[in-house]
């Protein structure tokens, strides 16, 4: 599946709910189901500290495709991390660099990506792109 196909799939899943609490229930469920974060990667250099919540992100390149692990101390943030990793894991650095992450806005979670939200997600997406760029440079 392409990045956009995955985004459309998520939009479809969330479209079943028009109540905020139902959307957040689904997000919390996704946060709870996120693959557990490998403790060896829980180190300072993988920590993205927001003013309120923390995000951990680990990235590696396997056979030209990027694989991510992520975590957060806040479950809603963790749910969004789960969505981002589902969309971006398994893609090439180029695909990730070109990705337009429109699904966050479409499912009504845009506020969480506002720089004022201080939850570490904005910095996380920047970090994902920075990893993609670094791996791309390394490959070439």
């Amino acid at each position, binding site marked *: 599946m392409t990045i956009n196909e995955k985004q459309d799939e998520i939009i479809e899943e969330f479209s079943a709910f028009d109540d905020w*609490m139902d959307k957040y229930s689904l997000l*919390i469920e996704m946060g709870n189901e996120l693959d557990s974060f490998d403790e060896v990667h829980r180190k300072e250099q993988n920590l993205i500290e927001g003013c*309120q919540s923390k995000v951990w992100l680990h990235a590696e390149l396997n056979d030209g495709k990027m694989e991510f692990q992520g975590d957060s*101390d806040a479950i809603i943030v963790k749910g969004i991390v789960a969505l981002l990793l589902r969309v971006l894991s398994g893609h090439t650095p180029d695909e990730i660099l070109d990705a337009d992450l429109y699904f966050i806005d479409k499912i009504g979670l845009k506020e969480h990506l506002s720089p004022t939200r*201080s*939850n570490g997600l904005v910095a996380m997406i920047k970090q994902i792109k920075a990893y993609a760029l670094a791996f791309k440079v390394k490959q070439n």
Partner: protein
Amino acid sequence: MGLNIQEIRNDFPILAEKVYGKPLVYFDNAATTQKPLSVIEAEADVYRRVNSNIHRGVHHLSNVCTEAFEEVRRKVAGFINAGSNEEIIFTKGTTESINLLATSFGEHFFSEGDEVILTEMEHHSNIVPWQLLQKRKGIHIKIAPVTDDGELDMDAFEKLFSGKTKIVSVTHISNVMGTINPVEKIIEKAHSFDVPVIIDGAQAIHHLPVDVKQLDCDFYVFSGHKMYAPTGVGILYGKREWLEKMEPYQGGGEMIDRVSFSGTTFNELPYKFEAGTPNFAGVIALGAALEYLKSKNLNDIWDYEHDLFEYAMEKMKAVPGIRLIGQASDHTSVISFLLGKAHPFDVGTLLDKLGFALRTGHHCAQPLMDRFGIPGTVRASFAFYNTRDEIDRLSEALNRVGTMLG
């Protein structure tokens, strides 16, 4: 006499707003309070009718505007029972008032190795200005600890004094826990060592009557925006004897007597500390806020808010998994809590979607969070326009949120 809460609510237009289609429940009053129509109108009216730079012109509007501005200085002096109008300095807010003191008092009275006493429950704005002074002058910062109940440890506080103590700077009321500190005792103790005291009144001024003469504090600072006035206006009250000895904080217009390149002489109090054009529209609207508060009577406000707090505590204690942070015997209407193992950010995000405005995080008091070993709290802070019905709704919402995050 009692307060007519419905009538009061009608005075605050924002309370009729809806968020996500739900009625707004505004429980973030410790961050900033909402403004009554009379305050909004007073500020708009300045621009509509009298806007003109103050203390400058010979023309009519400038005189009217200056008089309205100075009238508020007199009102503030009366409100806190200051000895004279000259002891009231207008600033941008509590933060600027403390920065002014740490700079002007600090530069004049501190030498390397001298000490300031703070407490563990201070807002960052009463910590960082002293750390900056520490960098500039090599002073020491001593910290009075907080007990498990969220009260100031008075025995430990008293032991911090030494011959090098130059000032004590302490909050009247904790912005996180609502603890009311025994400021009379603190001031008495400090004065017994001939040490002056700054009281950070940001969380107190709109909750209880403050009498600076009776307190005998040397400085008392607060913000307009937490007392139903516009943002960008603050007060520094200081005893004349101290203010006269202190150097100006910033240079510019208004604060000078005469300027030449061979040297400048400074204006008298209070203008010595008011460089540049002040936020006169905000100050004039602060006057309207003072009138509003006086018309409601601070004692009645205190009784009502206290009753609301007691009711809220009872309701909150019944919420499964709730952990209250700070349970001082003397407190204002602020409740900080954690819900089970849930992160405060999650609780706040879900409550937001249910129409509640609360604050989550460390509340600019990270040392206090460290003291309790927590990343932050969820904070509900009430004002006199809040109701029992809103608290009932919060308790229902917390039950729901607790289940979702359980």
